[in-house]
């Protein structure tokens, strides 16, 4: 295997959109049989670069060489013909088809002119086995977990026998355990001579998997280095152009009365006998592998799904929550995990997105929303959380992920909640915004809010939370105090290597 051969060479790549220079002078060289990571803040130009590589945009100026030959890609099909495959953060799969059908979608194997189902299933099984993924090719895709679906997406790209695979934030919905499995697969593909371009916000993973790292900032290429010659701190410095001393600042706060108390909560299906409490000024972490039931617990407490057993108390009084509106009245707020799906109304402005749960309060007796009061409310949060651009009249869909997230958090703070449940609040946001969001959470608890934070990122959980509850298969551990807690201990609880009946905090 010619591991030193050039798979891709992009030279002097630029791209100008009306009014904005998205990329300029980017050089990227990727060799076969290597994993090349691309890191950068949101807006650094990663997605534009990838769209150029996928044939969706044409570079102006710049040249692209694939395997030493200069190519011109006018449309995505051209890139596919050249053996370039993309695996997106959002999965492009059909839930009602089987795994095998998804893998061969659009390229169904044929025999004597007829669709060859047996052959397709055999080939899918062979590919999955080759990748070491324990998935039945005849299963309906929709019945798989998100992480398994992610593997199917990768198998689909792999089945097309690509020369170059581009993965965009492939681990954003995976737990650490599943990430390790994914990396085994990526290493196999790399060893088979495929060039892998790996885009991620998770620097630790980048160091783990990548052979080389390219840092982008503000549409320009900052540096390419071997992964062995760079640390996470250096990458952050190159990405943001400044030192970030502490990615997870922990603001000290005084812990007060018990605010939320959940006892024996269950939905009869996804989680059972969940008990925990959160006190004013406290951040309770809720972690575990994806599929452990963390989000389901949060959605049920917030009234988006029914609880079939157990009780929820706010300030010592039992509450019945049948809808998010009832939860809001009870003082519970929830920032969902899936920002695009459950968080934002992309076509509405930042102002309209923030004011939504408190619109009635902002309306006069004829139901007319008082624009001035609404503007003021939105403006307050835009300033307070430095939402960029600082314009409440901007459509929220045009903002970066981090700024969208700040707006969604603002929406709930406007309801003046007692408990704020944050579900993966920093997923898919860049390092700068991540630190800002952690800062916001710190401020909130300093002012006496009770916060539940769901996160798959152990450093985040360890850095931010006062106590941690680990979930596994729908059951929760007792809350564990942060002191003396290690990532290894959490992983042991999450994977079931240690029984959940640990000592109480």
């Amino acid at each position, binding site marked *: 295997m010619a591991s030193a051969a050039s798979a891709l060479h992009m030279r002097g790549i630029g791209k100008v959109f009306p009014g904005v220079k998205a990329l300029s002078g980017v050089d990227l060289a990727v060799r076969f049989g290597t994993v090349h990571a691309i890191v950068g803040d949101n807006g650094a130009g990663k997605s534009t670069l990838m769209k150029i590589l996928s044939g969706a945009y044409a570079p102006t100026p710049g040249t692209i060489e694939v395997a030493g030959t200069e190519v011109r890609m006018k449309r995505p099909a051209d890139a596919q013909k050249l053996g370039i495959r993309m695996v*997106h953060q959002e999965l492009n799969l059909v839930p009602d088809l089987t795994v095998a059908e998804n893998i061969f979608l659009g390229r169904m194997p044929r025999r004597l002119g007829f669709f060859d189902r047996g052959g397709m299933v055999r080939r899918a099984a062979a590919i999955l086995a080759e990748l070491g993924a324990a998935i039945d090719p005849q299963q309906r895709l929709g019945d798989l977990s998100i992480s398994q679906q992610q593997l199917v997406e990768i198998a689909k790209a792999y089945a097309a026998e690509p020369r170059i695979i581009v993965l965009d934030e492939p681990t954003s919905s995976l737990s650490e355990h599943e990430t390790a499995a994914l990396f085994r697969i990526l290493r196999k593909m790399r060893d088979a001579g495929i060039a892998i371009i790996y885009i991620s916000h998770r620097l630790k993973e980048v160091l783990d998997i990548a052979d080389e790292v390219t840092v982008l900032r503000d549409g320009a290429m900052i540096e390419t280095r071997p992964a062995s010659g760079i640390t996470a701190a250096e990458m952050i410095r190159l990405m943001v152009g400044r030192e970030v001393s502490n990615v997870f600042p922990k603001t000290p706060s005084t812990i007060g009365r018990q605010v939320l108390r959940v006892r024996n909560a269950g939905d009869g299906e996804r989680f059972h006998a969940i008990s925990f409490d959160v006190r004013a000024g406290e951040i309770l972490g809720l972690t575990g592998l994806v599929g452990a039931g963390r989000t389901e617990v949060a959605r049920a407490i917030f009234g988006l799904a029914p609880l079939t057993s157990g009780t929820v108390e706010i300030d010592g009084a039992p509450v019945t929550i049948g809808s998010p509106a009832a939860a809001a009245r009870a003082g519970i707020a929830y920032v969902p995990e899936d920002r695009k799906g459950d968080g934002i*109304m992309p076509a509405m402005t930042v102002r309209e997105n923030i004011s939504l749960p408190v619109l009635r309060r902002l309306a006069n007796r004829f139901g007319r929303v008082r624009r001035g009061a609404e503007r003021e409310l939105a403006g307050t949060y835009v300033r307070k959380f430095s939402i960029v651009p600082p314009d409440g009249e901007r459509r929220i*869909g045009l903002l970066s992920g981090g700024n969208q997230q700040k707006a969604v958090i603002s929406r709930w703070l406007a309801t003046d909640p007692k408990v704020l449940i944050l579900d993966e609040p920093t997923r898919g946001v860049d390092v700068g915004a991540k630190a800002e969001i952690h800062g916001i959470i710190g401020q909130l608890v300093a002012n006496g809010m009770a916060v539940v934070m769901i996160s798959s990122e152990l450093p985040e959980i360890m850095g931010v939370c006062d106590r941690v509850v680990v979930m596994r298969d729908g059951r929760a551990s007792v809350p564990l105090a942060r002191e003396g807690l290690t990532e290894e201990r959490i992983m042991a609880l999450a994977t079931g290597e240690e029984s959940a009946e640990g000592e109480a905090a």
Partner: protein
Amino acid sequence: MTDIAAMGQTTKDTARFSQGSRMVGLVSRAGLTLAILAVILYGSLANPVFFTAGNFVNVLMSMSIVGIVVVGMTFVLVVGGMADLSVPATIACGAILSLALQPYIGPVPAFAVAVLLAGLTGLVNGVLVGYVGINPIIATLGMGTIVLGIVQAAVGGVIVYGTDPSSADFVKSRILGVPMIAVIFIAIAILGNFVLSRTFWGRWTIATGGNYSAAQASAVPVRAVRAGAFVITAFAAGFSGGLLGLTLQSARPLVGQGYEFSAITAVVVGGVSIMGGFGSIPRAMAGLVFVQLLTNVMVLQGVRTPIQGFVLGLLIAGAVALDIALRKRGVA
């Protein structure tokens, strides 16, 4: 669709992209105004009758009855409820009852009862769509059939005539030369615009249509909002039917036939998204004006009815295709 091709259409949060599409959006908005002007210009040149006060009053009259339905239908489309196909039944309900009940309870109570019963139909539609979760097309088609059946059975399937000439005089009266029906229509359109663009309910409607689960997670009572759009449409259609009955002084069970199609055409041609989350009453009104003027010109020019239908069908298909294209480009 391959994944790479799909990526080319993923146009979410790149600020640069909005620049180009804002221009596209502007063109799409100005386009309708230009189209209206073009029809007026063509009509004026082609037919001496077109640009006369009498003709415009005629257009305004015929526009008013369907226009009231358009106001309601806009809410249905914006909330993501696709369409209300029970409109012919609710119009018939309004028309027949407002005439048939006149001898018993007097014209004004008759009108009120007619509109209320039509609204009740909308409530059932709303519960079926919003709370039970039945597909709106099926739910409203079914409800429409049931209500029409009940109305027909109640009046014995014959034509009902008006018995109170003063009510007929009222709807035929004019204020400063403007027909009373048009005045009522304009008032309802202004009210509808106020609700949709200025009140919390309107905002909830747009949010629910834009992203149902996000609206739900933002404490918007999404089921009630969805149901509400159908209640509003049924009230509008019942009201419109009542006025139609009073104007004609007679009503048959099939009096409302075709109004659902005309209303949907106007809303869609106005650029209100069939996928929900985007649209306004002024847009729908622009669509209505365009379609009505175009129809008027075709009638004056003696274009045969099948051809007229063909043209309107093309308009709908074109408007929907444009809507989808704009959505993909992140405009709508």
